[in-house]
């Protein structure tokens, strides 16, 4: 098949860059993730935040740039895959910019590796009849893969300037600025069906693109293949988990925690604040409130900063590394089948893994899942079974000292419960599961700057969200203790806790703390175990209940914000009996079998 394309030669067209009274409006248009934001930053000297989460870039960014003597208004539009037919919210915004006479000139930013997809969009942009320039960005990545594009030939066929760029280091930008003056209406098949456009894009790509075979031996490609195939992928997963354990569980939860808890707080901040309080405010009430057993500083701040912060920071560093390297989407391939039984698909692996850091944050990222039913199930399972980093640290810290069998018992029981509840929820809840279709990003070495920025923002968010709640929880505990309510609560819960679960009465109080802040309760359990008040079986039962139990207040509030109060209460209503009954069952079975860990 051949294409008859009308060509308009740039030289014959009207000069776009004549001096005019108002700035020339230049719209940047392109598929998601082609580097548009970086191009925008280069042209305007402004930096826009690069966000990876979908649904966050709805607003349009504008900036000024001087091209020759012409002042230009550069407009960054949301990434689009299509401009015709059923379009998404983002795509509608971009289309409006192009139709409503909001732009005089269009720069299509394309990923040079994927010319065919770009050309399908070029044909749709051409339909707006505006002068345009095509910027083939990321040519560095294309070359590294053995792909080269005959830009001169492509330019001749399309009748528009075609410029090769590397946005991250500025290559090709003087050419791009200069090319704006030669912008022309593209000669692409306009107004035909998407099938016609695809055929045209195919033919043209075949004509101007060269692919050498050397590309397949690149090391990242080899790693990419190894991570997704079962034979190599599962051992790699085991290594990744072990590295996660060493970095977060040992380095974060033990080395750093000890340094901060015993050193900074134990020898520095806590004795100093006790001294200050007793010296300047020698009132017993103030002493207890600030630096007593449930003191704001000695308990609240110590837990928040010394015990939880190192774990959260090391986890977010590791998570950011795995995220930026492109590993996590490949993990989704392994999880897809298992998740499908629970009414989810492989995509849910992202919130589930993030939940190991903070369930509250993970609950917010369930928005990336396709259907309301999937989001609800994921939120339920996060609250039920995924231990957050502080809990994980407690579990590893306590049971690590008991036995491997104890640790395995807990994980098997918790995973089994998640599986069962997920399976039931998938059957009981109305609605659909979405199909698993996922683009796998290339495996690449993460850029340190980006990793640190990301981790800093996440830790910052965590501190802003966690520390106030820690402190509020501490105040509440202090008040309850003063009113004698702690003893009362413990007494009420005692039959359940001591009878059904076979735990010491003091655990009741810890479960209450656990609701104020899940990890906070976990830390309380830590103390109990360290002072030798728990047997091996009791530790396993208590930690299992704690892991399954009602999420912390923060998680509950986020659930309510995401899904409404009714759903939030329903989730709590499901989880509480499941946690208690599982604990009771486990206690019964372990005793019946006369197990000692």
């Amino acid at each position, binding site marked *: 098949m051949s294409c008859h394309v009308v060509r308009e030669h740039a030289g014959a067209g009207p000069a776009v860059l004549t001096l005019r009274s108002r700035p020339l409006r230049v719209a940047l248009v392109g598929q998601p993730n082609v580097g548009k934001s970086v191009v925008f930053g280069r042209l305007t000297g402004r930096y826009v935040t690069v966000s990876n989460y979908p649904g966050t870039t709805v607003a349009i960014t504008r900036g000024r740039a001087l091209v020759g003597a012409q002042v230009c208004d550069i407009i960054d539009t949301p990434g689009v*895959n*299509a401009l015709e*037919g*059923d379009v998404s919210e983002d795509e509608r915004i971009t289309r409006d910019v192009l139709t409503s006479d909001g732009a005089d000139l269009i720069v299509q930013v394309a990923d040079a*590796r*994927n*010319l*065919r*997809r770009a050309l*399908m969009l070029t044909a749709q942009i051409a339909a707006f009849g505006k002068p345009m320039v095509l910027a083939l960005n990321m040519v560095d990545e*294309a070359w590294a*893969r053995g*792909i080269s594009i005959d830009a001169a030939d492509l330019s001749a066929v399309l009748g528009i300037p075609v410029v090769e760029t590397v946005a991250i280091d500025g290559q090709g930008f003087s050419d791009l600025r200069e090319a704006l003056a030669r912008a022309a209406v593209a000669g692409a098949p306009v107004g035909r069906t*998407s*099938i016609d456009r*695809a*055929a045209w894009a*195919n033919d043209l790509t*075949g*004509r101007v693109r*060269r692919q050498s075979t050397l590309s397949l031996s690149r090391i990242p490609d080899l790693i*990419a*293949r190894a991570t*997704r*195939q*079962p034979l190599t992928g599962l051992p790699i997963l085991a290594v990744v988990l072990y590295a996660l354990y060493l970095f977060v569980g040992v380095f974060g939860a033990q080395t750093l925690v000890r340094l901060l808890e015993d050193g900074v707080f134990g020898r520095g901040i806590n004795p100093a604040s006790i001294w200050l309080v007793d010296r300047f405010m020698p009132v017993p009430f103030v002493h207890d409130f600030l630096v007593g057993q449930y003191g704001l500083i000695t308990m609240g701040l110590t837990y928040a900063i010394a015990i939880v912060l190192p774990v959260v920071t090391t986890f977010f560093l590791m998570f950011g590394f795995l995220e930026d390297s492109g590993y996590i*989407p*490949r993990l*989704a*391939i*392994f999880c*897809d*089948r298992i998740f*499908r039984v629970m009414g989810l*698909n*492989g995509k849910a692996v992202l919130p589930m893994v993030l939940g190991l850091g903070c369930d509250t944050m993970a609950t917010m990222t369930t928005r990336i899942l396709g259907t309301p039913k999937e989001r609800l199930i994921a939120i339920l399972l996060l609250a039920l079974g995924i231990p957050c980093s502080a809990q994980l640290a407690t579990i590893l810290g306590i049971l690590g000292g008991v036995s491997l069998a104890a640790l395995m018992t807990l994980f098997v029981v918790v995973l089994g419960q998640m599986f069962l509840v997920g399976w039931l929820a998938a059957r009981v809840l109305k609605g659909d599961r979405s*199909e*698993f*279709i*996922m*683009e*796998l990003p290339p495996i690449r070495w993460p850029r340190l700057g980006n990793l640190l920025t990301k981790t800093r923002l996440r830790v910052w968010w965590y501190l802003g969200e966690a520390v106030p709640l820690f402190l509020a929880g501490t105040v509440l505990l202090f008040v309850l203790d003063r009113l004698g309510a702690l003893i009362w609560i413990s007494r009420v819960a005692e039959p359940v806790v001591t009878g059904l679960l076979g735990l010491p009465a003091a655990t009741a109080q810890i479960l209450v703390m656990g609701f104020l802040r899940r990890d906070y309760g976990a830390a309380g359990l830590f103390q109990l175990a360290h002072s030798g008040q728990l047997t091996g079986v009791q530790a396993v039962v208590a930690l299992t209940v704690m892991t399954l139990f009602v999420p912390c207040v923060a998680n509950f509030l986020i659930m309510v914000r995401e899904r409404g109060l009714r759903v939030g209460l329903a989730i709590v209503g499901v989880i509480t009996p499941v946690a208690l009954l599982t604990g009771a069952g486990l206690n019964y079975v372990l005793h019946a079998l006369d197990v000692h860990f």
Partner: protein
Amino acid sequence: MSCTLLTFTSKAVPLSSLAVGQHGLVSSVSGAPTGRSDRLVSLGITPGAVVTMLQRFPGVVFFCDQTELAVERAVADAILVRPMEDVR
């Protein structure tokens, strides 16, 4: 100059039946629940696209235009391709 050195047999089969390493020319996306074909088209899976099977288990992974895509079995069953023999 053309560098297409591939010939293909004419019968369309599901993508899921390609062997690892085999190429196929997409002919259509069938039995689509709403949204499936739109999502695939926007990822470059259109009639005429060349795909290469990379992996069949535990999930189907294939290659199209420098992009690796992972899909579940049902989706791979719904993409019809004409298998190509590499005659280079």
